[in-house]
């Protein structure tokens, strides 16, 4: 596989982003303007009078015709300006960054948990198929997929936080500690500051929400790995490997997993994209200031600017993550080539 086709393929995919994002921006703009509710009314609260509301509408530019509002928005976006929040008056890029970092950190941990547990459970299930070692994890995976995440979160808090007292139940770090932020990734920032105690505390704070958030992807991954492995283990080259006298572990993990991984990769990619979009429920339960909270709040306040730009950024992330997954396919399976 030469380098050039990949670059061309990537360039084409990035170019394809433009119509997609344009479509996303139009849809989001249309939806938020179609749903009732007025940002000015929500910002000013229940006690505001009609005149104040009108004044604020004017200040926010909400009294302009819709095409003009959309035009202004598009113009700003094209200049790389995500706009300012209608509610707080701060630059959205500035506000979005810490929330995105919080979400990315949580997603990373959730996916590490999901991949380690999910892939291994899937492999072992396939390996020992139709035994209790297969049935029990697959039953648990089914439960995992169907579990209400807020319930799971509260149960984890109860068990690991309150009964066993192993782990903190809230936030990215101890509320009494203020982490000096540079990158807004607490794990990186605490290491940069050389504060290993806070680093460790940040890791501990990540575990429960990551487990809660990772449970559903874990279950998907386990089921996908199992079915993909079952398929692969039937092939001749697996029989050959066994015939060579390779240890069963290497047969399964080396020869089997490598070939079974492509569909699992797709699931991982989709789940990473989904989790990076923010997980409102997990963030709510664990007081996690992520991007889901940020946009969810914005919807409550009808902060049109934040909703539009936030969703646009998430769409970009989602597409980029999927592009990376697509590129990884050829790495996993050289037969897949990009043209």
């Amino acid at each position, binding site marked *: 596989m030469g380098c050039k086709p990949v670059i061309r393929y990537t360039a084409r995919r990035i170019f394809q982003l433009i119509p997609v994002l344009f479509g996303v921006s139009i849809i989001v703009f249309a939806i938020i303007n179609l749903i009732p509710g007025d940002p000015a009314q929500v910002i000013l609260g229940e006690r505001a009078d009609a005149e104040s509301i009108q004044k604020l509408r004017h200040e926010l530019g909400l009294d302009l015709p819709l095409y003009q509002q959309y035009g202004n928005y598009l113009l700003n976006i094209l200049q790389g300006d995500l706009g300012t929040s209608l509610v707080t008056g701060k630059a959205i890029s500035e506000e979005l960054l810490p929330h995105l970092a919080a979400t990315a950190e949580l997603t990373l941990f959730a996916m590490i948990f999901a991949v380690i547990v999910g892939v291994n459970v899937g492999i072992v299930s396939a390996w020992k198929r139709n035994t209790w070692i297969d049935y029990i994890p697959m039953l648990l995976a089914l439960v995992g997929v169907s579990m209400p995440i807020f319930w799971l979160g509260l149960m984890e808090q109860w068990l690991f936080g309150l009964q066993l*007292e*192993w782990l903190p139940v809230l936030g990215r770090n101890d509320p009494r500690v203020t982490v000096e932020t540079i990158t807004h990734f607490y794990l990186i920032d605490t290491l940069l500051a050389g504060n290993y105690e806070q680093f460790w505390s940040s890791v501990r704070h990540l575990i429960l929400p990551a487990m809660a958030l990772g449970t559903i992807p874990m279950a998907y991954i386990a089921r996908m790995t199992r079915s993909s492995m079952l398929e692969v283990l039937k092939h001749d080259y697996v029989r050959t490997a066994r015939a060579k006298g390779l240890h069963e572990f290497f047969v399964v993990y080396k020869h089997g997993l490598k070939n079974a991984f492509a569909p699992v990769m797709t699931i991982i990619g989709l789940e990473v994209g989904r989790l990076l979009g923010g997980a409102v429920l997990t963030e709510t339960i664990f007081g996690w200031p992520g991007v889901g909270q940020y946009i969810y709040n914005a919807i409550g306040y009808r902060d049109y600017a934040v909703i539009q730009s936030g969703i646009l950024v998430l769409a970009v992330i989602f597409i980029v993550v999927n592009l990376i997954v697509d590129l990884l396919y050829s790495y996993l399976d050289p037969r897949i080539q990009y043209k």
Partner: protein
Amino acid sequence: MKKLAIKTSVVLLAALLALTGCSSGSNPSDKSSEKSASEKILVVGRGGDTVTLDPAQSTEDESNRVTEEVVETLVTYKKGTSDLSPLLAKSWEVSPDKLSVTFKLEENVKFHDGTPFNADAVVFNFERWWDPNHPYHQGTFSIFKTDMGGFKGDDSTVIEGIEKVDDHTVRVKLKHPFAPFVAMLTEPQYGIVSPESLKKSNGQFKDQLIGTGAFQFVSWTPNDKVVLKKNPEYRVPGFPKVDQLIFQVIKDNSARLNALKSGQIDLMEGVNPSDVSSLEKLPNLKTYTSASNNVGYLSFNTKQKPFDDPRVRQAISMTIDKQALIDAFYYGQAEPAVTILPSGSWGFNKELKTYPVDIEKAKQLLAEAGYPNGFQTELWAMPVARPYMPQPEKIATALQASMKQIGVDAKIVSFEWATYLDKVQSGEAPMALLGWSSATWDPTTMMYTHHRSTDSVPTNNISMYKNPEVDKLLDDALQEPDQEKRAEMYKKAQEIIYQDAPINPLVHSTPVRAASARVANYVPQVTYGPQFTDVDLTN
């Protein structure tokens, strides 16, 4: 591929070690909190984030809760009571003609930026709120406008002007007597901020808030926390007691309670009423119940048929068992409402009794109104829980069953919150659940807002109620300086409204907070005013 596999295994192994390392860890509490044991840090868990740091622009409680600890008002309420008490004003005096109020200010007070607090600062702040041409009048100042009737130049404003009498005395002149004026100044929107800081920041409050309060603003991390620290030069020696005050957002009530039990936060607002009895059994936690100054109500749209007939409204009112609602949905943490005013208000009419449950009488009234077999309608339920309405959909279901007894077949309708408010305040709902938490103890904030007729929408008078007699009483009571005479007017108005039944006040809920037993001297504030100046943390 091999390299990738090896790299991946190393990363995975490290992560696994981290995971197992944690789960076998034996230090239950965070080390960081042990380290900070010498510093007293009080963490308050709350359900929502601050929206603005500008006290004058704030329209909701989460912002107010922070600004009132940093920025002081001239007047406040004594904690947990309805008694006015001095704060930045040592005293105040209403002139004999009731047309001006003179405030004597505290002396030797400094803002957190070191500039002096004096009459000039008060005049500056007042003009910022009041004068649309003031250079720092940026925003809507909607609470000021609602309270004071308008801005400088408006005919409707009650303010004639403000003047400095001497360095520590200011006088506010009124166009006509306006009885609730001083009580309104307790609201956080009337907090006095440092004029110099405003000039420096060009009127912006994005990352700063400079007042005279017991705590200084340090930082605000959106959707996470607001950090305040002790003002070392607070004018009352020995206060505040704690070194840092942190407001931590945890939206979910149950998760917030878990955080309190685990010691990650010290005090929480919004305890689920259903959790109260189990909490009271825990030795290391305390619960606090404060008097009620809110109301949850069922509103009838008096402009829509069949609710334009008072007999229909009375009939439905006679089907509602308020005590049963309180037992089922408030777990006893509420008092049945008779009128819109809670029984602790000085304007409350004690002669009135809540409509008794009387199905026969209700059926008879409905028949007289021309609906012997009842009718079909809609009952709108709020999509969000509020202290005065903790489980709106379930309460709606209970009310639906009550009405069914007299043949009123109500379909329950709900919308997302902003949509709901918009539609309800525009008069679209036949029947709707809503409520109100009052900003002051002055009866006008409840009565005028909900029962004074108005032609403009959206309005808080969501029943679209209009009774000229009530309008006159409410208008007159605003101008009457004598509290006893005002009380009589409000009582008379309540009598009329009781008969007209534009709303059915269901309950006044008593909000519950909980705190670690380490928290000392905490008295919850019912309306507004600093709560944490004298709160301490013990070991």
